[in-house]
Protein backbone atom coordinates (compact mmCIF):
# COMPACT_ATOMS: atom_id res chain seq x y z
CA UNK A 1 0.00 0.00 0.00
CA UNK A 2 1.08 3.56 -0.63
CA UNK A 3 2.35 5.81 2.15
CA UNK A 4 0.88 9.24 2.82
CA UNK A 5 4.16 11.04 3.38
CA UNK A 6 2.74 14.52 4.02
CA UNK A 7 -0.52 16.42 4.12
CA UNK A 8 -0.17 20.10 3.30
CA UNK A 9 -2.73 22.89 3.35
CA UNK A 10 -2.07 26.47 2.42
CA UNK A 11 -3.36 29.62 0.84
CA UNK A 12 -2.42 30.26 -2.80
CA UNK A 13 -1.43 33.87 -3.26
CA UNK A 14 -1.04 34.51 -7.00
CA UNK A 15 1.25 37.52 -6.33
CA UNK A 16 3.95 35.41 -4.65
CA UNK A 17 5.75 34.55 -7.87
CA UNK A 18 6.06 38.18 -8.95
CA UNK A 19 6.91 39.43 -5.44
CA UNK A 20 9.57 36.78 -4.90
CA UNK A 21 11.27 37.30 -8.26
CA UNK A 22 11.13 41.11 -8.31
CA UNK A 23 14.35 43.04 -7.79
CA UNK A 24 15.37 46.62 -7.03
CA UNK A 25 12.61 49.18 -6.83
CA UNK A 26 10.02 46.65 -7.98
CA UNK A 27 10.62 44.39 -4.98
CA UNK A 28 7.92 44.96 -2.36
CA UNK A 29 9.08 45.56 1.24
CA UNK A 30 7.46 42.37 2.52
CA UNK A 31 9.06 40.11 -0.11
CA UNK A 32 12.09 38.96 1.90
CA UNK A 33 10.03 37.85 4.91
CA UNK A 34 7.55 36.12 2.60
CA UNK A 35 10.31 34.27 0.73
CA UNK A 36 11.88 33.14 4.03
CA UNK A 37 8.54 31.73 5.19
CA UNK A 38 7.98 29.96 1.88
CA UNK A 39 11.51 28.49 1.96
CA UNK A 40 10.81 27.01 5.40
CA UNK A 41 7.41 25.73 4.25
CA UNK A 42 8.96 24.14 1.15
CA UNK A 43 11.37 22.20 3.34
CA UNK A 44 8.39 20.52 5.03
CA UNK A 45 7.50 18.88 1.71
CA UNK A 46 11.07 18.18 0.64
CA UNK A 47 11.87 16.24 3.81
CA UNK A 48 8.81 14.01 3.25
CA UNK A 49 10.46 12.68 0.04
CA UNK A 50 7.23 12.40 -1.99
CA UNK A 51 6.96 10.51 -5.28
CA UNK A 52 3.57 11.82 -6.38
CA UNK A 53 1.43 14.83 -5.45
CA UNK A 54 -2.36 14.91 -5.14
CA UNK A 55 -3.18 18.59 -5.71
CA UNK A 56 -6.51 19.92 -4.45
CA UNK A 57 -7.55 23.29 -5.85
CA UNK A 58 -10.37 25.15 -7.56
CA UNK A 59 -10.54 26.38 -11.13
CA UNK A 60 -11.22 30.14 -11.18
CA UNK A 61 -13.49 30.15 -14.26
CA UNK A 62 -10.68 29.16 -16.55
CA UNK A 63 -11.53 25.83 -18.14
CA UNK A 64 -14.62 24.96 -16.08
CA UNK A 65 -17.63 27.06 -16.93
CA UNK A 66 -21.24 27.55 -15.90
CA UNK A 67 -22.68 25.59 -18.84
CA UNK A 68 -21.23 22.36 -17.44
CA UNK A 69 -19.99 22.88 -13.89
CA UNK A 70 -18.70 19.92 -11.88
CA UNK A 71 -18.76 20.05 -8.07
CA UNK A 72 -15.76 17.74 -7.67
CA UNK A 73 -13.51 16.73 -10.55
CA UNK A 74 -10.41 14.54 -10.80
CA UNK A 75 -7.95 15.00 -13.64
CA UNK A 76 -6.80 11.89 -15.45
CA UNK A 77 -4.28 12.82 -18.09
CA UNK A 78 -0.62 12.12 -18.85
CA UNK A 79 0.18 15.85 -18.74
CA UNK A 80 -1.34 19.09 -17.47
CA UNK A 81 -0.47 22.41 -18.97
CA UNK A 82 -0.66 25.17 -16.43
CA UNK A 83 -1.71 28.81 -16.15
CA UNK A 84 -3.81 30.93 -18.47
CA UNK A 85 -3.36 34.16 -20.40
CA UNK A 86 -5.26 36.20 -17.82
CA UNK A 87 -3.04 34.85 -15.01
CA UNK A 88 0.04 35.73 -17.03
CA UNK A 89 -1.47 39.17 -17.60
CA UNK A 90 -2.52 39.94 -14.04
CA UNK A 91 -0.01 38.04 -11.91
CA UNK A 92 2.94 37.44 -14.23
CA UNK A 93 2.63 33.67 -13.75
CA UNK A 94 4.73 31.52 -16.10
CA UNK A 95 3.37 28.84 -18.40
CA UNK A 96 4.12 25.39 -16.98
CA UNK A 97 3.67 21.72 -17.83
CA UNK A 98 3.35 19.01 -15.21
CA UNK A 99 3.30 15.26 -15.67
CA UNK A 100 0.20 13.39 -14.56
CA UNK A 101 -0.06 10.11 -12.66
CA UNK A 102 -2.80 8.24 -14.48
CA UNK A 103 -2.69 5.14 -12.33
CA UNK A 104 -3.45 7.10 -9.15
CA UNK A 105 -6.06 9.16 -11.03
CA UNK A 106 -7.77 5.97 -12.19
CA UNK A 107 -7.73 4.57 -8.65
CA UNK A 108 -9.14 7.73 -7.05
CA UNK A 109 -11.91 7.91 -9.65
CA UNK A 110 -12.98 4.27 -9.52
CA UNK A 111 -12.77 3.91 -5.76
CA UNK A 112 -14.05 7.42 -5.05
CA UNK A 113 -17.14 6.83 -7.18
CA UNK A 114 -17.70 3.49 -5.47
CA UNK A 115 -17.31 5.22 -2.08
CA UNK A 116 -20.24 7.52 -2.86
CA UNK A 117 -18.70 10.53 -4.64
CA UNK A 118 -19.96 10.85 -8.22
CA UNK A 119 -16.69 12.43 -9.31
CA UNK A 120 -16.44 14.17 -12.66
CA UNK A 121 -13.25 13.58 -14.61
CA UNK A 122 -11.21 15.34 -17.25
CA UNK A 123 -8.80 13.82 -19.76
CA UNK A 124 -7.57 17.21 -20.92
CA UNK A 125 -7.24 19.72 -18.12
CA UNK A 126 -5.30 22.95 -18.02
CA UNK A 127 -4.62 23.76 -14.39
CA UNK A 128 -4.74 27.26 -12.96
CA UNK A 129 -2.99 29.11 -10.14
CA UNK A 130 -4.84 27.22 -7.40
CA UNK A 131 -2.55 24.31 -8.32
CA UNK A 132 0.42 26.02 -9.96
CA UNK A 133 0.97 28.41 -7.01
CA UNK A 134 1.63 25.58 -4.55
CA UNK A 135 3.92 23.96 -7.14
CA UNK A 136 5.83 27.26 -7.34
CA UNK A 137 6.05 27.59 -3.55
CA UNK A 138 6.51 23.94 -2.53
CA UNK A 139 8.11 22.19 -5.51
CA UNK A 140 9.39 24.79 -7.95
CA UNK A 141 11.39 22.22 -9.89
CA UNK A 142 7.97 20.77 -10.86
CA UNK A 143 9.49 17.33 -11.25
CA UNK A 144 6.81 15.12 -9.67
CA UNK A 145 3.67 13.71 -11.29
CA UNK A 146 0.39 15.08 -10.02
CA UNK A 147 -3.27 14.19 -9.71
CA UNK A 148 -5.36 17.36 -9.76
CA UNK A 149 -8.60 17.42 -7.78
CA UNK A 150 -10.85 20.41 -8.41
CA UNK A 151 -13.66 21.58 -6.15
CA UNK A 152 -16.36 24.15 -6.77
CA UNK A 153 -15.93 26.96 -4.23
CA UNK A 154 -16.91 29.62 -6.70
CA UNK A 155 -20.27 29.11 -8.36
CA UNK A 156 -23.47 28.60 -6.34
CA UNK A 157 -24.98 26.12 -5.74
CA UNK A 158 -21.93 24.58 -4.07
CA UNK A 159 -21.63 21.40 -2.00
CA UNK A 160 -22.05 21.72 1.76
CA UNK A 161 -18.93 22.19 3.95
CA UNK A 162 -19.41 18.72 5.44
CA UNK A 163 -19.14 17.26 1.94
CA UNK A 164 -15.70 18.80 1.52
CA UNK A 165 -14.61 17.21 4.80
CA UNK A 166 -16.00 13.82 3.73
CA UNK A 167 -14.20 14.02 0.40
CA UNK A 168 -10.98 14.83 2.24
CA UNK A 169 -11.39 11.78 4.46
CA UNK A 170 -12.08 9.64 1.40
CA UNK A 171 -9.02 10.92 -0.47
CA UNK A 172 -6.87 10.11 2.56
CA UNK A 173 -8.29 6.60 2.85
CA UNK A 174 -7.86 5.95 -0.87
CA UNK A 175 -4.29 7.25 -0.93
CA UNK A 176 -3.54 4.79 1.89
CA UNK A 177 -5.23 1.85 0.19
CA UNK A 178 -3.73 2.49 -3.26
CA UNK A 179 -1.72 -0.60 -4.21
CA UNK A 180 1.64 1.06 -4.76
CA UNK A 181 4.92 1.57 -2.96
CA UNK A 182 4.83 5.29 -3.73
CA UNK A 183 5.04 8.06 -1.18
CA UNK A 184 2.07 10.35 -1.71
CA UNK A 185 1.84 13.96 -0.58
CA UNK A 186 -1.67 15.42 -0.51
CA UNK A 187 -1.56 19.18 -0.98
CA UNK A 188 -4.55 21.49 -1.04
CA UNK A 189 -4.95 25.23 -1.23
CA UNK A 190 -7.80 27.53 -0.37
CA UNK A 191 -8.49 30.88 1.20
CA UNK A 192 -9.00 32.42 4.58
CA UNK A 193 -11.25 35.51 4.56
CA UNK A 194 -11.10 37.05 1.13
CA UNK A 195 -13.02 39.62 -0.85
CA UNK A 196 -12.67 39.95 -4.62
CA UNK A 197 -14.68 42.45 -6.62
CA UNK A 198 -16.48 43.84 -3.56
CA UNK A 199 -16.22 46.83 -1.21
CA UNK A 200 -13.84 45.12 1.24
CA UNK A 201 -11.19 44.06 -1.30
CA UNK A 202 -7.48 44.91 -1.14
CA UNK A 203 -7.50 46.39 2.35
CA UNK A 204 -4.40 46.49 4.59
CA UNK A 205 -5.33 43.02 5.96
CA UNK A 206 -7.79 40.32 5.02
CA UNK A 207 -11.40 41.51 5.22
CA UNK A 208 -12.09 39.64 8.50
CA UNK A 209 -8.99 39.21 10.72
CA UNK A 210 -11.12 37.70 13.49
CA UNK A 211 -12.32 34.94 11.16
CA UNK A 212 -8.72 34.39 10.04
CA UNK A 213 -7.50 33.96 13.61
CA UNK A 214 -10.23 31.42 14.35
CA UNK A 215 -9.66 29.60 11.06
CA UNK A 216 -5.91 29.31 11.65
CA UNK A 217 -6.63 27.86 15.09
CA UNK A 218 -9.17 25.35 13.74
CA UNK A 219 -6.80 24.16 11.02
CA UNK A 220 -3.72 23.95 13.22
CA UNK A 221 -5.53 21.89 15.84
CA UNK A 222 -7.68 19.85 13.44
CA UNK A 223 -10.76 21.18 15.20
CA UNK A 224 -13.37 20.14 12.65
CA UNK A 225 -16.18 20.20 15.22
CA UNK A 226 -15.74 23.92 15.95
CA UNK A 227 -15.17 24.79 12.30
CA UNK A 228 -18.28 22.96 11.10
CA UNK A 229 -20.35 24.38 13.97
CA UNK A 230 -19.57 27.93 12.83
CA UNK A 231 -19.26 27.61 9.07
CA UNK A 232 -22.10 27.20 6.59
CA UNK A 233 -22.66 28.07 2.94
CA UNK A 234 -24.57 31.15 4.13
CA UNK A 235 -22.13 32.22 6.84
CA UNK A 236 -19.12 32.15 4.53
CA UNK A 237 -20.33 35.23 2.65
CA UNK A 238 -19.82 37.29 5.81
CA UNK A 239 -16.02 37.20 6.22
CA UNK A 240 -15.62 38.14 2.54
CA UNK A 241 -17.32 37.31 -0.74
CA UNK A 242 -14.65 34.79 -1.83
CA UNK A 243 -14.34 33.05 1.56
CA UNK A 244 -16.00 29.84 0.31
CA UNK A 245 -12.43 28.95 -0.62
CA UNK A 246 -12.09 28.09 3.06
CA UNK A 247 -13.94 24.88 2.20
CA UNK A 248 -10.76 23.61 0.55
CA UNK A 249 -9.08 24.01 3.94
CA UNK A 250 -11.96 22.01 5.45
CA UNK A 251 -11.31 19.31 2.85
CA UNK A 252 -7.65 19.25 3.86
CA UNK A 253 -8.62 19.02 7.54
CA UNK A 254 -10.57 15.93 6.51
CA UNK A 255 -7.42 14.58 4.87
CA UNK A 256 -5.30 15.35 7.94
CA UNK A 257 -7.81 13.85 10.37
CA UNK A 258 -10.09 15.15 13.10
CA UNK A 259 -8.23 16.70 16.05
CA UNK A 260 -4.85 15.94 14.52
CA UNK A 261 -2.55 18.82 15.30
CA UNK A 262 -0.44 20.16 12.45
CA UNK A 263 3.25 19.35 12.76
CA UNK A 264 4.09 22.68 11.16
CA UNK A 265 2.02 25.86 11.15
CA UNK A 266 2.91 29.35 10.05
CA UNK A 267 1.08 32.42 8.81
CA UNK A 268 1.80 35.84 7.38
CA UNK A 269 -0.47 38.85 7.61
CA UNK A 270 -0.34 40.52 4.19
CA UNK A 271 -2.32 43.26 2.52
CA UNK A 272 -5.52 41.86 1.02
CA UNK A 273 -5.42 38.46 2.74
CA UNK A 274 -3.72 36.38 5.42
CA UNK A 275 -1.36 33.67 4.25
CA UNK A 276 -1.34 30.38 6.18
CA UNK A 277 0.80 27.25 5.86
CA UNK A 278 0.26 23.84 7.52
CA UNK A 279 1.95 20.45 7.26
CA UNK A 280 1.08 17.12 8.86
CA UNK A 281 3.22 13.96 8.84
CA UNK A 282 0.89 10.97 9.21
CA UNK A 283 3.81 8.52 9.37
CA UNK A 284 5.17 10.07 12.56
CA UNK A 285 1.75 9.75 14.20
CA UNK A 286 1.22 6.14 13.09
Amino acid sequence: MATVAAVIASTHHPFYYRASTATGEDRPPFADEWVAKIDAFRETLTRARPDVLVMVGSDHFHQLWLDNMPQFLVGKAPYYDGNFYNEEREFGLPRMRLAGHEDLSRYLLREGIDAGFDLAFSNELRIDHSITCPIITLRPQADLPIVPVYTNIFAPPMPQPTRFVQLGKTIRALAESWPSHARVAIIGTGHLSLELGGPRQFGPHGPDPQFDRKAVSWIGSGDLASALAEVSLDSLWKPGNATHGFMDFLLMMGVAGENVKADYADSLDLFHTMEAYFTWYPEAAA
Partner: protein
Amino acid sequence: MSRYLLDKFLYTIDRDPELVERYRRDPRGTVTWWEAERANVILGSHPAEASTWLAFTDAEREALASQDHVALFELGAHPFLTLTLFIALFERDHPEPLSYQREYAARLAHWTLPHPDIST
Protein backbone atom coordinates in the same frame (compact mmCIF):
# COMPACT_ATOMS: atom_id res chain seq x y z
CA MET B 1 -32.66 38.79 -15.51
CA SER B 2 -29.79 36.93 -17.15
CA ARG B 3 -26.92 36.82 -14.71
CA TYR B 4 -25.58 33.83 -16.58
CA LEU B 5 -25.27 35.85 -19.78
CA LEU B 6 -23.57 38.75 -17.99
CA ASP B 7 -21.06 36.27 -16.62
CA LYS B 8 -20.65 34.69 -20.06
CA PHE B 9 -19.81 38.06 -21.58
CA LEU B 10 -17.24 38.85 -18.89
CA TYR B 11 -15.73 35.35 -19.12
CA THR B 12 -15.42 35.18 -22.89
CA ILE B 13 -14.00 38.70 -23.22
CA ASP B 14 -11.56 38.26 -20.33
CA ARG B 15 -9.89 35.15 -21.74
CA ASP B 16 -9.22 36.60 -25.19
CA PRO B 17 -6.51 39.29 -25.45
CA GLU B 18 -7.95 40.73 -28.68
CA LEU B 19 -11.42 41.03 -27.21
CA VAL B 20 -10.08 42.69 -24.06
CA GLU B 21 -8.54 45.43 -26.21
CA ARG B 22 -11.60 45.69 -28.41
CA TYR B 23 -13.87 46.09 -25.37
CA ARG B 24 -11.56 48.75 -23.94
CA ARG B 25 -11.50 50.64 -27.26
CA ASP B 26 -15.17 50.30 -28.19
CA PRO B 27 -17.30 49.15 -25.27
CA ARG B 28 -20.74 49.77 -26.72
CA GLY B 29 -19.89 48.38 -30.15
CA THR B 30 -18.32 45.27 -28.60
CA VAL B 31 -21.41 44.59 -26.50
CA THR B 32 -23.71 44.98 -29.53
CA TRP B 33 -21.53 42.68 -31.66
CA TRP B 34 -21.17 40.13 -28.86
CA GLU B 35 -24.89 39.92 -28.13
CA ALA B 36 -25.65 39.43 -31.84
CA GLU B 37 -22.83 37.01 -32.69
CA ARG B 38 -21.60 35.32 -29.53
CA ALA B 39 -24.25 35.32 -26.82
CA ASN B 40 -25.85 32.11 -28.07
CA VAL B 41 -22.69 30.19 -28.87
CA ILE B 42 -22.42 27.12 -26.62
CA LEU B 43 -18.74 27.12 -25.70
CA GLY B 44 -18.29 23.35 -25.77
CA SER B 45 -20.34 22.74 -28.95
CA HIS B 46 -19.97 23.17 -32.69
CA PRO B 47 -20.94 26.76 -33.66
CA ALA B 48 -23.87 25.48 -35.72
CA GLU B 49 -25.42 24.00 -32.57
CA ALA B 50 -26.07 27.37 -30.96
CA SER B 51 -28.72 28.32 -28.43
CA THR B 52 -31.65 30.47 -29.55
CA TRP B 53 -32.85 32.31 -26.44
CA LEU B 54 -30.12 34.26 -24.71
CA ALA B 55 -30.38 38.07 -24.56
CA PHE B 56 -29.49 40.86 -22.14
CA THR B 57 -32.05 42.97 -20.34
CA ASP B 58 -31.76 46.68 -21.10
CA ALA B 59 -30.12 47.32 -17.71
CA GLU B 60 -27.58 44.57 -18.26
CA ARG B 61 -26.70 45.75 -21.76
CA GLU B 62 -26.26 49.31 -20.51
CA ALA B 63 -24.10 48.26 -17.55
CA LEU B 64 -21.73 46.45 -19.91
CA ALA B 65 -21.79 49.18 -22.57
CA SER B 66 -20.99 51.86 -19.98
CA GLN B 67 -18.41 49.61 -18.22
CA ASP B 68 -20.10 50.37 -14.91
CA HIS B 69 -18.71 47.90 -12.37
CA VAL B 70 -21.04 49.17 -9.63
CA ALA B 71 -24.08 48.43 -11.79
CA LEU B 72 -22.68 45.01 -12.70
CA PHE B 73 -22.18 44.24 -8.99
CA GLU B 74 -25.77 45.27 -8.27
CA LEU B 75 -27.08 43.14 -11.14
CA GLY B 76 -25.37 40.09 -9.61
CA ALA B 77 -22.55 39.58 -12.11
CA HIS B 78 -19.93 37.32 -10.55
CA PRO B 79 -17.59 39.75 -8.73
CA PHE B 80 -14.48 37.75 -9.58
CA LEU B 81 -15.19 37.90 -13.30
CA THR B 82 -15.95 41.63 -13.24
CA LEU B 83 -12.85 42.43 -11.19
CA THR B 84 -10.49 40.36 -13.31
CA LEU B 85 -11.66 41.87 -16.59
CA PHE B 86 -11.80 45.43 -15.26
CA ILE B 87 -8.24 45.16 -13.92
CA ALA B 88 -7.20 44.19 -17.45
CA LEU B 89 -9.11 47.15 -18.87
CA PHE B 90 -8.19 49.93 -16.46
CA GLU B 91 -5.28 49.11 -14.16
CA ARG B 92 -2.90 50.47 -16.82
CA ASP B 93 -4.41 53.94 -16.34
CA HIS B 94 -3.52 53.93 -12.62
CA PRO B 95 0.28 53.74 -12.25
CA GLU B 96 0.33 53.46 -8.43
CA PRO B 97 0.21 49.72 -7.48
CA LEU B 98 -3.28 48.59 -6.35
CA SER B 99 -4.68 52.11 -6.64
CA TYR B 100 -7.21 50.97 -9.26
CA GLN B 101 -8.31 48.02 -7.08
CA ARG B 102 -8.78 50.35 -4.09
CA GLU B 103 -10.73 52.89 -6.08
CA TYR B 104 -12.89 50.05 -7.42
CA ALA B 105 -13.67 49.01 -3.84
CA ALA B 106 -14.36 52.59 -2.73
CA ARG B 107 -17.02 52.97 -5.42
CA LEU B 108 -18.80 49.97 -3.84
CA ALA B 109 -18.42 51.27 -0.28
CA HIS B 110 -22.13 51.97 0.10
CA TRP B 111 -22.77 48.21 -0.06
CA THR B 112 -23.11 46.26 3.17
CA LEU B 113 -24.14 42.63 3.63
CA PRO B 114 -25.91 40.88 2.15
CA HIS B 115 -24.46 41.54 -1.27
CA PRO B 116 -26.60 40.95 -4.38
CA ASP B 117 -27.31 37.33 -5.27
CA ILE B 118 -24.78 35.94 -7.77
CA SER B 119 -26.31 32.51 -8.24
CA THR B 120 -27.06 31.54 -11.84
